């Protein structure tokens, strides 16, 4: 889908971030439209996760602007960005130790509306409501982990933890999902499941997806177009097929093998 055809939901304009003397992200500019699926690809160290951290507010860009739904995100803390509709999964799995899968989603369900006042807890008014339980169950069903609902994440393997992360992010009903290497550590079958879930949320819920992934076959399956980064800079933006055919991309991604 061409960029011009969709309403920009997320817009990055000349975003820069460096650590010491290293330019991790350098003047990155691109848009993601509402309901669009974009792949953010590039070799290790390209700055993809740093860019995600800038979008989510975990890092502050030194230059450039990020807009979400037309609003500038500068100075907006992470939790408010999440409430605006930015959901995220993490490259290194971030689950809540000792909590059940259902509780993971309940945290997300409540927090997206900014609920959680102390007085409601003290008046015993914080019990999960039926409609909340229904939404949580529907998300578990969507990701295919209903059978794990009441299990502590301590008992789960990496693959299931990635699915829990994905379900938790979806439970916030984000307008855009930033998925950071969701297939890392998964086998082929699990990767296909994750790809199917991402396609479903994009098509059925209209959630935009910004996908960082090394598994290019999965990227091809999920995204409408791709943005390629290398050493902090943007190398290419366009359709996935054009991207794969681009010599600069092949060089960055495959090195000498690409030329062969």
């Amino acid at each position, binding site marked *: 889908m061409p960029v011009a055809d969709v309403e920009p939901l997320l817009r990055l304009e000349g975003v820069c971030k460096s650590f010491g003397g290293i330019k991790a992200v350098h003047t990155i500019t691109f848009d993601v439209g509402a309901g669009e699926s974009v792949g953010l690809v590039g070799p290790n160290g390209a700055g993809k996760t740093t860019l995600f951290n800038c979008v*989510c507010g*975990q890092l502050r860009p030194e230059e450039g602007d990020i807009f979400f739904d037309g609003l500038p995100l500068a100075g907006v*803390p*992470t*939790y*408010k960005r*999440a*409430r605006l509709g930015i*959901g*995220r999964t*993490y490259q290194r799995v*971030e*689950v*809540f*130790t*000792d*909590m059940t899968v259902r*509780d*993971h989603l*309940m*945290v*997300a369900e*409540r*927090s*997206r509306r*900014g*609920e*959680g*006042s*102390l007085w*409601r*807890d*003290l008046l*015993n008014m*914080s019990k999960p409501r039926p409609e909340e339980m229904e939404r949580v169950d529907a998300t578990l069903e969507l990701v295919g982990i209903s*059978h*794990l609902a*009441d*299990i502590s994440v*301590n*008992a*789960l*393997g990496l693959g*299931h933890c990635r699915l829990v*992360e994905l379900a*938790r*992010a979806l439970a*916030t009903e984000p307008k855009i999902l930033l998925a950071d290497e969701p297939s890392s550590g998964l086998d082929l079958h699990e990767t296909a499941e994750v790809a199917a879930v991402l396609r479903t949320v994009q098509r059925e819920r209209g959630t935009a997806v910004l996908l960082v992934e090394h598994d290019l076959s999965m990227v091809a399956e999920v995204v409408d177009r791709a943005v390629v980064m290398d050493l902090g800079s943007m190398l290419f933006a366009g359709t996935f097929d054009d991207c794969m055919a681009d010599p600069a991309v092949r060089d960055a991604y495959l090195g000498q093998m690409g030329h062969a």
Partner: protein
Amino acid sequence: MEQLLGFALPGVPYGCTYALVAVCLVLTYQATGVFNFAFGAQAFASAFIFTYLTQYHGWSGWEAFLLTVVVLGPVMGYAFDRLIFRHIPNSNSTAKLVCGLALLVGIPSLLPVIFGPQNLDATATIFPFFNPNTVYFTIGSGLYSTPINGIYLATISVTVVVLILLTILLRFTSLGLQMRGAVESRRLVQLDGVNANGVVAVAWIISSFMAALAGVLLASGYGAFNSDEFVTLTVTAIAAAAWAMLRSLPIAAGVAVLIGVVTTVLQGYIPPNSFWNAAVVPSLPFFAIAAALLILPGLRNLDSSRDPLATIDPPPEPIAASTRAPSMDRIIRSLWWVVLAAFCVSMLTWIPVTWETVFNNGLTLSIICLSVTLITGMAGQLSLCQATFAGIGAFTAAVFSVHLGFNFLVGGLIGAAIAAIVAVVLALLSLRLRGLGLALMTLAAALLFDNTAFNTIWVTGGAQGTSIQSKWLGTSAFFDFNGHAMFILSFCVLAVAVVIVLLVRKGTVGRNLAAMRGSETATAGLGVNPTWQRIVVFALSGAIAGVGGVLYSIQQQHVSPVDWNTTFSLVLVVLVVTTSVNTVEGAIQAGIGLFVVEQLLTYLPSRFGGPSLTIVLFAFGALTYAQHPEGVLEYQKRRSTARFERLFFAKEAEAEDRKAQAVSVGASG
């Protein structure tokens, strides 16, 4: 200039002893990842034994020095590594902190248990290096001259020699290189063929030797032989280590000497009887810690594990209680109600006054322990100033009663509110701090209150504190302090506090806090405001501690600064961690357990240490935190329950096990 020099020079030897311990902290942290709070206690132990041997057994200074500094100090360090810290995974920073605190609390209490209660005078000890009474030369002249005696020379020369040798060891030997590698991951350097355990043991031995040396120098040099001096030693060393970002030995040593010098300079210039001299000068190290934590970003995530092999750690043991057979569960729940009813009836009818006092003390302390459950068990943050919050509640009530004629309980409610406000201010100051950083900030806050508000006669009524008059409580006929009324009041307030904690735990705030314990980044990424959650839990914890402090003071019939000093905050953590920091039962068992054990120990001869032995027992319990994060008492309870279950409900228990296994197989499949 001469005046400045005259004030500054006496601070140098103090600074040198601080420098030795600061270097110990940095060395151990760099080589093992452990921030050993107990170095001050180790220094105290060596000084105690050194003084004991020279004073009561006629040992010469050299003999005592060889035993305490050269033998006992290193043996202690080796034992701590071999028996405790080696078994704690690198990633378990809370366990490392808790064990350090347990040693800090336990070691000084163990000494009277071993040697009996002693009244030692450090000034009488015989120093082994130089004659302490001989003035070798004088710097300056006239009023501001500084006589350089044996102690002065010995302290500076020993410190300089030790620091030079240590620098050579770390910079220019392969052992030093291996130590630097071991801090990342013992397991990783072992893969390179390095005997990592041996390297780490050497670091413990060296640092413990230096701590022992600092203790003997401080005690025999300055006649400073009380635990307060060693708390100052520890805290100043921590401040210096913090400014060195726990990395640089020279900076740690330099800052320690600087603090020693600045302290004596300020003491020289500020009028001796002023508030500033009494309160602010001793607080200098605490300001230094707080400033370092606020200014240096590197201190914010000190204890985040850097072990690349941390992921190979086995998963934690499953919790036994989660697979309890339904019949067993019903019996235990029913039994709890029966025990509770029997306890209440007994307290109101036949129980002797001695035990009534014990249980009333325990109930009031349980409320304060509940505040630890909230902040440490639920929020996963180690706060070392819960007794300070309790003290704020108690002293506010006393001030309102003494100066404004308020009812003590009404003043107590205001006190609880002020404690909550102080807790919120502390939470706001430590927003970016986690784990060790937060522990140090709360420790600094506690010590700051000890030296300022709790050291002001207008607030405390002096070192002896203020006696609580029954008229402050309304009707004196009802409040006979140790009687039934006190039990009813304590029991009701404790019940309310328990309900509050339980409601918060199962509510949204509790769920958010549990999530933050797992990953604060991910929790914020879902839309939870972590700052607000921390403020809420700090405020609630401060208020509960404040209320507990008020009731505890009523029960003790006085409000005294000794009751609410920093050491008591540390003891509270050790108590609750031993029973169970995650459950309200744990808090109640900790509160009541302390006084019950203390009372039981009164039936033993005083030779066994009395109250000191109680603290030692709980400290031993806390040392098992890495193996039993649920609390060693809770672990034993669950084990006994499981045994009972196997005996009487074997079939049900097997069915539950099969169910749990099926779930776990389903999850892994």
